[in-house]
């Protein structure tokens, strides 16, 4: 069973794993059995017989350039490199013959003759493979030196003793904010170049020149690392055996002495990292090779952008104020909790039990989220709990619930390695889910085909060694029409998988669906004008998907954040069922979750209509479980969703909110409406690391703890429950679950948790899909994918293998209904929004790191044609207006967007892209329609009145009174 025993030993065994029939050979007299295709080097390492190496590392394929790993093999001539020699049955290998030992020492002597001997002051001292190998081969002497008077022949001395310049010496490249490239220490092993190609797939690095002139080079000759295509994922730094590519944090602080495996707190990929520290000082985050989501890879956010945890703007003391126009007053935890509890109870007495609620966070742990929804259900006595998943993947919950029976991606990320044809719709994984993006690109380079459905030409459409077979550049808001057109082709051309449908789905519902979708009004030709996608492209894409082998669909918020978001999710599920692409590796329906714990926060009962495990509050048998566990009566009526809370607040019926780890003012649509709702409340409690935008309207600020400071679990987009481990103590004094418990107990909760493992035990006891989950199990296995219970004690990598969660798969009729948000003479363009690689969500974390070097402001992408008719040039300030509001930002002219479509990100509060977005939302879930806003763009002189007023209000709202003497 895969990963049943976690290889806690992270030793680099030289070349990647292979799968194949067992092959037995002899290495230094020991019998070793390994899969066919394995290298001699790997086989030897697995037997504990490490062969010296420099250019080999097990994250990339063998290269055979350093010649340090040579061996002798009986019956073969010469001394082959063990990294490039596959094992063979009966092979007899000698790793330490006098001949190979002599060769290795000679090779090392040559390497060292062109390497500075400043080991004691080198940043890689103690963490350098060159140093280790010099020791391993017993190098004792370096005989090579330039003849007298012949000038310098090395790469590491800037000048000779006479002061003459060494033209082969290159200065350190310190342009990247997180790592340096020091050419003088480079041994040109190509590990960085290969990691950039094979692992990351960016192809930013190359070896320039030949022979003695060979140098690692980022981009073209005039580039440095920052100006090149480098995306700062860290794969090259990870692969480098010397100090050539070195984290700046290690250079500044020294090599780390201890490490803790934990889980990244950025996107829904949920990468495992080793936090490497000295004491409680974090030195670096290194991707964990055994992490089942990331398999040793990382992106610029998880690998490097953790400095926010120590940022000077982090708030460490609780603060309160009576009114939001007053400055904050720092108080003790006791006083802050007492103030909050008294106010909330007072509001309930005055305005009713349902006048207060909570928002749980997809950035917090499962345990923290569980407690926040428990707070409202068991202590406040209502179901007014919602989560930021409302504004991202709530349609996934509804759509997949209706069709398959549960809200979850069907696959693990490893599945993509077996896909033949992949549809990516409304997602931009190379920016928003970078590690999955790299894994997908790797599979595409190996031959899988790709269909991209997106209004923008994302990087996946065409980038080095990747090209989509079809890019359906649809008009924003027409997803349902395109998905139904694809289904139309599959059904009318008889390309569907009848055997699968007959056995796995409801045949009557399929026939109704087939009749619906066969109607000529769904034909690609009929919707060509509406969608803007050529009919031939749609037909080609449908045929490719239906006939192309294992077909997988990955989707993101470009699907869900529409007035028909839930309908599109159902349409996607229909496509997968039609083509029989459910229930085995390489296929499936895979929502790419935006934040680290979107899946978990939904699982934990954050939604106002359902208790943990997606069970509706109306069901008495479900309520009974929790009523017994909590000793309270649970309201059988659904509570308020976030937009409903704000509406109710404006009307005066919703008065108090506890908002954990979520910045609704910046991230939710129609900022003015959100601000009005918050301003109408009498007790807003913000629990966060920073004084975020929502805190401008708060009366209580409870300092949060970072993911480095807490224990708990995150559940990623694969339903994988990963452990978050405390690597340092909370700088604010409490982990977030402890703060929620303090508040609950101040309101009579009587909670007695002493560790998050006890909270998980309560989750397991009440929620069938988590019944088998314990911290011990996760510790032993590294991670576990739910459902994990008596039926599947080891978890469930693939869902719906033998049958759907709901029994038979259900085809849903998905008719296209145009959004109310329409372009017209006043607002002729369509705005769509998204993310960029270096920033994350509202930017609260990444803006407080060096990542801002890549993206210091939100830009408006506009097609050159649309710009020209408006007289706009690159970099101009432009006014972006919708019927909700207006803002200003700078224009970036690009043909990535089609004429008629503009695009921006929402990472910066001073842009406030959401001033422009509307209150339109998904019909089923009220997920906001971020992706379609009718706008006008025109020239501008600078910030709008709203932006200036907002900045002034924010400045005043953030004032903190000096602590009393």
């Amino acid at each position, binding site marked *: 069973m895969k990963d049943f025993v976690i290889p806690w030993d992270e030793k680099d065994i030289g070349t990647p794993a292979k799968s194949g029939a067992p092959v037995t050979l002899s290495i230094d007299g020991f019998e070793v059995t390994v899969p066919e295709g394995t290298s001699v080097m790997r086989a030897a390492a697995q037997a504990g017989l490490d062969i010296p190496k420099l250019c080999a590392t097990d994250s990339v394929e063998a290269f055979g350039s350093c010649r340090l790993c040579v061996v002798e093999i009986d019956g073969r001539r010469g001394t082959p490199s063990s990294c490039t020699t596959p094992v063979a049955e009966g092979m007899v290998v000698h790793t330490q013959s006098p001949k190979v030992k002599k060769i290795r020492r000679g090779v090392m002597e040559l390497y060292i003759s062109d390497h500075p001997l400043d080991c004691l002051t080198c940043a890689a001292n103690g963490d350098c493979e060159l140093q280790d190998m010099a020791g391993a081969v017993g190098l004792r002497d370096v005989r090579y030196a330039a003849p007298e008077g012949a000038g310098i022949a090395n790469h590491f001395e800037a000048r000779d003793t006479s002061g003459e310049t060494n033209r082969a010496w290159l200065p350190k490249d310190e342009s990247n904010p997180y790592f340096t490239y020091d050419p003088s220490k480079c041994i040109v092993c190509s590990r960085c170049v290969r990691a950039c190609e094979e692992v990351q797939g960016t192809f930013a690095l190359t070896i320039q020149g030949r022979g003695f002139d060979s140098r690692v080079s980022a981009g073209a000759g005039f580039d440095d690392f920052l100006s090149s295509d480098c995306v700062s994922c860290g794969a090259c730094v990870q692969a480098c055996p010397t100090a050539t590519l070195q984290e700046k944090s290690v250079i500044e602080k020294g090599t780390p002495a201890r490490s803790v495996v934990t889980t990244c707190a950025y996107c829904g990929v949920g990468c495992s990292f080793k936090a490497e520290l000295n004491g409680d000082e974090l030195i670096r985050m290194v991707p964990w090779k055994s992490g089942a989501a990331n398999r040793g890879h990382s992106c610029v956010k998880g690998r490097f952008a953790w400095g926010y945890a120590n940022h000077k703007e982090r708030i460490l003391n609780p603060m309160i104020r009576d009114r939001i126009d007053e400055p904050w007053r720092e108080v003790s935890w006791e006083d802050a909790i007492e103030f909050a509890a008294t106010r909330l109870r007072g509001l309930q007495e005055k305005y009713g039990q349902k006048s207060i609620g909570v928002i749980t966070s997809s950035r917090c742990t499962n345990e923290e989220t569980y407690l926040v929804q428990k707070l409202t259900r068991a202590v406040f006595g209502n179901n007014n709990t919602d989560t930021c998943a409302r504004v991202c993947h709530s349609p996934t919950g509804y759509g997949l619930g209706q069709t398959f029976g549960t809200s979850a991606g069907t696959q693990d990320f490893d599945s993509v390695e077996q896909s033949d044809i992949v549809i990516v719709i409304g997602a931009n994984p190379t920016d928003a889910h970078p590690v999955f993006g790299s894994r997908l690109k790797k599979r595409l380079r190996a031959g899988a085909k790709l269909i991209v459905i997106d209004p923008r030409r994302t990087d996946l459409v065409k980038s080095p060694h990747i090209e989509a077979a079809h890019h359906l550049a649809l008009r924003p808001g027409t997803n349902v029409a395109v998905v139904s057109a694809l289904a139309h082709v599959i059904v009318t051309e008889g390309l569907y998988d009848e055997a699968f449908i007959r056995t796995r789905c409801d045949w009557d519902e399929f026939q109704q669906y087939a009749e619906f979708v066969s109607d000529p009004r769904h034909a690609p030709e009929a919707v060509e004008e509406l969608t803007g996608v050529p009919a031939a492209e749609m037909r080609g894409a449908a045929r490719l998907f239906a006939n192309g082998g294992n077909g997988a669909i990955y989707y993101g918020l470009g699907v869900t954040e529409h007035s028909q978001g839930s309908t599109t999710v159902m349409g996607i599920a229909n496509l997968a069922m039609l083509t029989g692409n459910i229930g085995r590796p390489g296929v499936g329906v895979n929502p790419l979750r935006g934040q680290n714990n979107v899946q978990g926060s939904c699982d934990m009962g954050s939604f106002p209509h359902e208790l943990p495990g997606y069970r509706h509050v109306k069901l008495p048998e479900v309520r009974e479980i929790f009523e017994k566990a909590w000793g309270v009566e649970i309201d059988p*009526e659904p509570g308020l969703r976030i937009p409903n809370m704000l*509406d109710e607040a404006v009307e005066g019926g919703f008065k108090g909110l506890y908002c954990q780890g979520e910045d609704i003012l910046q991230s939710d649509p129609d900022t003015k409406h959100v601000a009005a709702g918050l301003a109408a409340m009498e007790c807003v409690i913000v629990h966060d690391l920073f004084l975020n935008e929502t805190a401008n309207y708060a009366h209580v600020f409870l300092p949060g703890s970072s993911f480095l400071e807490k224990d708990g679990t995150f559940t990623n987009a694969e339903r994988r429950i990963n452990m978050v481990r405390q690597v340092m103590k909370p700088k604010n004094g409490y982990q977030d679950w402890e703060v929620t418990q303090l508040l609950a107990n101040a309101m009579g909760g009587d909670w007695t948790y002493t560790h998050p493992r006890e909270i998980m035990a309560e989750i397991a006891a009440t929620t069938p899909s988590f019944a088998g989950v314990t911290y011990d199990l996760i510790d032993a296995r590294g991670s576990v994918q739910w459902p994990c219970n008596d039926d599947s004690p080891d978890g469930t990598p693939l869902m719906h293998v033998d049958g759907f969660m709901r029994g038979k798969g259900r085809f849903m009729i998905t008719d296209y209904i145009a959004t109310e948000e329409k372009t017209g003479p006043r607002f002729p363009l369509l705005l769509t929004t998204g993310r960029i690689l270096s920033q994350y969500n509202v930017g609260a974390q990444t803006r407080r790191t060096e990542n801002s070097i890549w993206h210091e402001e939100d830009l408006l992408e506009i097609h050159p044609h649309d710009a020209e008719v408006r007289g706009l040039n690159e970099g101009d300030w432009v006014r972006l207006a919708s019927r909700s509001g207006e803002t200003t930002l700078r224009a970036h002219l690009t043909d990535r967007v089609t004429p008629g479509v503009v695009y921006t990100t929402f990472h910066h509060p001073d842009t406030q892209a959401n001033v422009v977005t509307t209150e339109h939302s998904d019909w*089923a879930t009220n997920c906001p329609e971020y992706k379609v806003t009718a706008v006008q763009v025109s020239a501008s002189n600078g910030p709008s009145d709203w932006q200036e007023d907002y900045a002034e209000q924010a400045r005043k709202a953030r004032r903190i009174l000096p602590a009393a003497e």
Partner: protein
Amino acid sequence: MAPEKMVMMANQIAGFFHTQPGDDQAAKVADHLNDFWAPKMRGQLIDHVEAGGAGLDPLVIEAIGMVRQPA
């Protein structure tokens, strides 16, 4: 909630169930409202229908008898 917004949300739900097969669309609209709308919102909708139901899709009006009255 502003009445126009409530009417739009209810009509969106009706819009979806109009497209669904069977003859129980009104019941499905009512189920959806019962499952996802908080009691106060349902009460507002019921009041709006009783006041004439201006702007509402006829399917919502048909469904309203099956919408649970808030306690």
